[in-house]
Structures are given as structure tokens and as C-alpha cells.
């Protein structure tokens, strides 16, 4: 930490006067940021963001603290209640709701009026008509597959469910599994459910289910599970997936024991590191199941928020505006930085095979809508119970009736409060 601060101080001295914008309001004091961008590449991005912002403002000192991403999920509540910093990282949609309800996050609707190009993600940051944070990055989900194996078997990227099933059968016949997945930490199963349900019943139905307006025992939900079961009964998924984390499931795809992975774009980096070249990996949009529903996608958004108890709200707001500006968005989401999609429509997407495909898919081919993710769209408790049920279904599909009854019971209780 000290070395970061020293580095920050040094940059301030060297470039502070040169970079300071004469027109910006003079910010003073200290800006405390707590970030969960703890993986190596995001960490470098965050440190640079803090250093640059510090350099821009002569009289402002930026203090950055980076906390492990998983640990932050349980630490955030203590940090926000006792001695809150000015700016924190978190997630959009329902994931921020408990903190908004408890009055721990600042209403920043005022700065949304000054920002352009964020309309597509505004909904995810809005609760009761007010905005409680700003997004800084998002990424597409989709099927990442082994292009070389598809070529070897003469398969095409599927566009319909029938093609998907036919492809899978061909892959199984070649002695491989269709999909790798690790469900030990449950959320990966949530991704599959999101897609199957949005393809079977559409985005609006999926969101109604997330809001608790549709019973889990509804026939339309059952249809989603019936579609899912087709894959499970074929033996499409790797065995014993309940033992693996998502990272532990990667080798199956790298070794060619499984050919595809339904994942977020963050899976590309470890695949490349494991030795797969871009000729070997490719990406396709999850195929249509019900031709009557428009395609909708999962694209989780990561966010910055101002704590309600922040000491330096003026600087915090200025930092949020800085992060979403088109240039900064281009810079931090580039392939050599976060390697994800910028949220500002005026920024440019880095020239990367997967970012380009993802950007085109989300901007041109997801007319149904863009969801956050199972564990961000559903309220916390429903998400936890739901994902557990989904995992059980993937291992014991015969337990479906019991699972649905259990989830329905939970729905009646959770949304009643």
C-alpha cells in the first residue's frame, strides 16, 4: 500500500500541474476508494485510474485500497456501515438493493443528467426511479467453443435448438462431452437457466420470474426445465461437475474432453493462458429455442457507487463522471486492460475477436433485452436457493418436482416480506 501511495505522490508532483484542468471545480482533501478489482489485470487498471485522477487534481489525494473480490462480497456490509469510504465497487440490479434500502448508497441521479451515452445500462442502476451508481464495464455471455474440434467434425455454429442438439449428438458420438461446467459454487448453473428460460419464454417472462410474479411451478418454467433435460439426458455435460469450480472445469475444454463452455467473456483470458490459440477458440450466441421470442442476453455490469456516509462526496461524484467518460471507458476496457466492453456508447471497442463479436451481438442481436445475471436479477435469498435447486436438477433431473415445490414455497415467503 505504501508503495502505491508513494507512486501516487510521485505522479502527482510530476504531472499534477500539467494535467490539472483549469475548468474543473477544484477538488480538495482525500478521496478514499475501496475496490474489488483484485485480479492482476483489473488491479493494474484500478491503480492507473486512481493515479490518473489524483494527477488531474492538484489538491486532492486519492487513497486506494484493493480487497479480494470474493472477500469483498461479505465485507461490503461492514465497510459501508462503519467508517465508509467515498467510492466502492459493487454490482448492478438487485445485488445493490439491500444496501440502497438500508440507505448506505448515495443517490447519484444528479450526475446521470450530465452523462451521455449510458442509456442502455441505465435501467440496471435504477431503483425506484433513482440511480445509485455508475457502471464501468460489462461483458457478454455466450458459448465459447473449440473451433478446431467443430471443424474436425464438420459442425457449424448452431442457430436453432435442433441444430444445437444435433451438434451435441455428433460431439458425443466422437467420444467427447458437449459442455464443460463446474457447479461447485452454483452460479454457473444460473447462467444456463438464464439462457434456457430467456430462449424458451422470453426476457419479460424471465424478469417477471425474477420479480416473483410468476410461480416456479408454472408450466412455462417447466417447459424450460424440459428443454434443459434434453441436454442432461443426452449426457451433454461433463460428469461430476458438482465437484468443480468454474476454473477447475476449464481443463476439460483445453484438453478437448469437452467442446464448449457457456461463460462470460472473462473465460477467454485463462483459455488463452492455458495454451489455446484464437484459431482454436470461437464464440457463438446461445441458439434460439422458441422462434417466437426475441433473443435476450446476459451481460453483467460491474459498477462504482458512492457511500451514503462518504466524507468527500464532491470528489466521489467527479470520480464517477471521470470513469464513465468515453475516453476513459475506451482505455480501461481495452484488450490489454480489462478486456471487456465499455458502457459508454461513444467509446470504441478494442479490436479483439471476442469483444467485437460480443459488442455486435449485444447491440444488434439482443432485441429482447439485456439481463444482469441470475444472482443479480433475483433477490439474494431467492438466488441462493434457486441456484442450489438448479445444481440439484443438473445432477438428479428426476428431483424436479420436489425442487420446484421447494422454490415455490420460498418464493411465496421471500417476496411477501
Amino acid at each position, binding site marked *: 500500500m505504501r508503495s502505491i501511495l508513494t507512486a501516487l505522490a510521485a505522479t502527482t508532483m510530476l504531472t499534477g500541474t500539467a494535467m490539472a484542468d483549469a475548468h474543473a471545480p477544484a477538488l480538495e482533501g482525500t478521496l478514499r476508494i475501496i475496490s474489488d478489482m483484485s485480479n492482476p489485470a483489473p488491479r493494474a487498471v484500478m491503480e492507473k485510474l486512481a493515479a490518473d485522477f489524483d494527477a488531474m487534481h492538484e489538491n486532492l489525494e486519492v487513497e486506494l485500497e484493493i480487497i479480494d473480490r470474493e472477500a469483498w*462480497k*461479505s465485507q461490503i*456490509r461492514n465497510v*459501508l*456501515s462503519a467508517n465508509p469510504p467515498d467510492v466502492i465497487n459493487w454490482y448492478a440490479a438487485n445485488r445493490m438493493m*439491500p*444496501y440502497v*434500502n*438500508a*440507505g*448506505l448508497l448515495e443517490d447519484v441521479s444528479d450526475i446521470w443528467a450530465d452523462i451521455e451515452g449510458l442509456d442502455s445500462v441505465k435501467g440496471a442502476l435504477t431503483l425506484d426511479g433513482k440511480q445509485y451508481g455508475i457502471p464501468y464495464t460489462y461483458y457478454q455471455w455466450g458459448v465459447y467453443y473449440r473451433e478446431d474440434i467443430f471443424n474436425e467434425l464438420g459442425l457449424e455454429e448452431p442457430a436453432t435448438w435442433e441444430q444445437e442438439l444435433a451438434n451435441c449428438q455428433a460431439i458425443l458420438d466422437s467420444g467427447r462431452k458437449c459442455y464443460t461446467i463446474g457447479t*461447485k*459454487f*452454483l452460479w454457473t448453473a444460473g447462467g444456463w437457466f438464464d439462457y434456457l428460460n430467456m430462449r424458451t419464454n422470453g426476457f419479460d417472462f424471465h424478469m417477471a420470474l425474477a420479480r416473483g410474479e410468476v410461480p416456479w411451478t408454472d408450466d412455462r418454467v417447466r417447459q424450460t426445465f424440459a428443454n434443459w433435460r434434453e441436454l442432461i439426458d443426452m449426457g451433454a455435460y461433463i*460428469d*461430476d461437475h*458438482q*465437484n468443480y469450480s468454474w476454473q477447475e472445469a476449464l481443463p476439460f475444454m483445453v484438453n478437448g474432453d469437452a467442446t464448449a463452455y457457456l461463460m462470460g467473456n472473462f473465460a477467454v483470458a485463462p483459455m488463452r493462458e492455458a495454451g489455446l490459440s484464437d484459431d482454436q477458440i470461437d464464440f457463438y450466441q446461445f441458439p434460439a429455442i422458441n422462434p417466437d421470442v426475441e433473443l435476450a442476453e446476459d451481460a453483467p455490469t460491474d459498477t462504482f457507487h458512492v457511500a451514503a456516509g462518504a466524507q468527500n462526496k464532491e470528489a466521489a461524484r467527479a470520480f464517477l463522471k471521470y470513469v464513465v467518460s468515453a475516453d476513459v471507458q475506451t482505455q480501461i476496457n481495452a484488450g490489454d486492460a480489462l478486456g471487456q466492453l465499455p458502457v459508454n456508447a461513444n467509446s470504441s471497442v478494442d479490436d479483439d475477436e471476442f469483444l467485437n463479436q460480443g459488442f455486435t451481438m449485444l447491440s444488434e442481436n439482443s432485441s429482447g433485452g439485456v439481463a444482469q445475471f441470475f*444472482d443479480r436479477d433475483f433477490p*439474494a*435469498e431467492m*438466488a*441462493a436457493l434457486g441456484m*442450489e*435447486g438448479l*445444481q*440439484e436438477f443438473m*445432477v438428479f433431473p428426476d428431483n424436479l418436482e420436489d425442487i420446484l415445490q*421447494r422454490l415455490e414455497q420460498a418464493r411465496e*415467503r421471500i417476496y411477501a*416480506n
Partner: protein
Amino acid sequence: MAVAPVVPDTHPPRETRGWYRRNEIKVTPWLFLLPGLLFFATYVILPIFQSFQVSLYRWDGLGELSETGTFIGLGNYRELMTDRAFEISLWNNMRWLFLYLLAIPMGLGIALFLNQTVVGIRLYKSLFFFPFVISQVVVGLVFSWFYLPKEGLLNAGLALFGLGPVNILGDPDLATYGIIAAGLWPQTAYCMILYLTGLNAVDPEQVEAARLDGAKGWKMLWYVIVPQLRPATFIAFVVTIIGALRSFDLISIMTNGGPFGQTRVLSFYMFEKALAEFGFRMGYGASIAVVLFLIMLCFIAYFLWSMWRDERVAR
């Protein structure tokens, strides 16, 4: 010898010592106990009552209980009665309790086996004690690799005998037993050390006398050795039962409560409901904690009572 005055002195010399000096013997122990008592009250006794209080509310743990909490009386406990996940956790706790006790006879067995004088016995003893020294997290990791369905050593061993692969941690019926087996490894080592020290205190004359009377083998063990090991057995019981009820780290490392929540125990379930990533039910978590506390209280009360009884007998 000084001669006592015949007439009692009606003007005794004025007491010059201060209040503390006069009461030194009575006060000093309390002064030494004070920091401990203070901390015990603040960090143990008070939270127990706070948990009782919180368990009567519906509260997401954010903000002050008095402002954001809703009093719902025994609502949380009523929900516990119908909560299947709670029932599973409770039964798993029972499994832990009973199976963990196996550590005691196993520890005794190893202790008897190691209680001999051969070259290098110290090395063997430390090797057997080794699992207790390493962290539970490491034990959990090692065992989860051991159990891995494809690459694991266990299945490689089973394959030698032509037995099919088993996925212990992925099977909801076997996973808990798999974790308990991992927990028994360090716990047995602990019990072994307790018995090894106990065996040092066994009276050789009694063993000699028993031998002259023709006792050997199991009879010798059961009627002569084991009764003399009673203090060690008592401690072994206490640490094993408390250890079983506290089990948390192995579960968290090896299965994270899964597959689909079948390996949870009460402490893990409480953590999930109240403090983990999706846990916003402080009140419900507190009610689970209260149940766990009451179970522990039965054992603790029994232990305290039997210690008190022993002390009275000894006096």
C-alpha cells in the same frame, strides 16, 4: 516466645495498613481475574444474549436493529421447524457427533501401539501427530484431491481391486461421511497425544499385580489400563464433541455445503443465512445459532457437572 500481656490492651495500636493491604488476600485473585472476566463478559456472555434478542427479529443486518429490524417473536423458530435445509444440517451435526467419537478409540489404539521403546519411536510419534499440526484447510484440500472422481488416489486404489469409481464429495449421501473421515484424521492424532501422556502416568505396580493375577490382553486393557486413563478419556471426549459441533472449515473447503446443501451443518448454515454472499437474514441466522448453542449447552453442562463432581470426591 513473647509473653502475652495478662491484661488485654484496651488501646490496641491503630491499624496503619491501607484498605488494600488489609484485604490483599481476598482482593488480589479478583484483580487477576478481572481482565479475563471482563473480556469473557463482553465477547462471550453478552453476544449470547444479543443472539437471543436478534433471533426474535426479521433483520437484514444492515443499519441498527432497533430501526431496520421487525419484531416477529418466535417466527424464525417456527420457520426452522419446517425448513428442510435446517433438518438436514441438524442430522448432519448428529452424524458428526457420533462418528467423530471414533477418534477416541482410534487414538487409544495408536497410543497403545506407539507406547513402547524401540529405536526411533519419537520419530514415529511425531509422524502420527503430524496431521494435528497442519491446518484444517490443508487437510481439507488434501482429502478433496484424494477423493477426486477421476484423478484421485482413492479411485486409483479402488480400481486396483476392480471397483468402480466413486465420487464421494459429489454424492449427496456420501459427502458428509467423506468430510467426517477427513476430520477424523487430525482428531485421532489429537486423542493419541492425550492418551500417550496418560499412559505415562499408568502405575506400573498395578500392571505388575494384575499380571501376577493372570490378567492379559483385553482384560488387562479394559479393567486395569483404561480406568487409569480416565482423565485423558474425559478430555478426549470434551475436545472431540466440541470439535464435532464446531466443524466448519472442512465443509467450507471441501464441498462449500454442497452438493445442493447436503453437507451443511448448523454452524455452516448459520453462516450462509446470516453472513455469506447471499445471506441477509441476521434474525434467522441468530435463531440457528441459538439452537446450536442449546445443543452445545447440554454437553457443556454435563462436562461442568462431572468436573465439579470429581472435584468434590477428590476433596
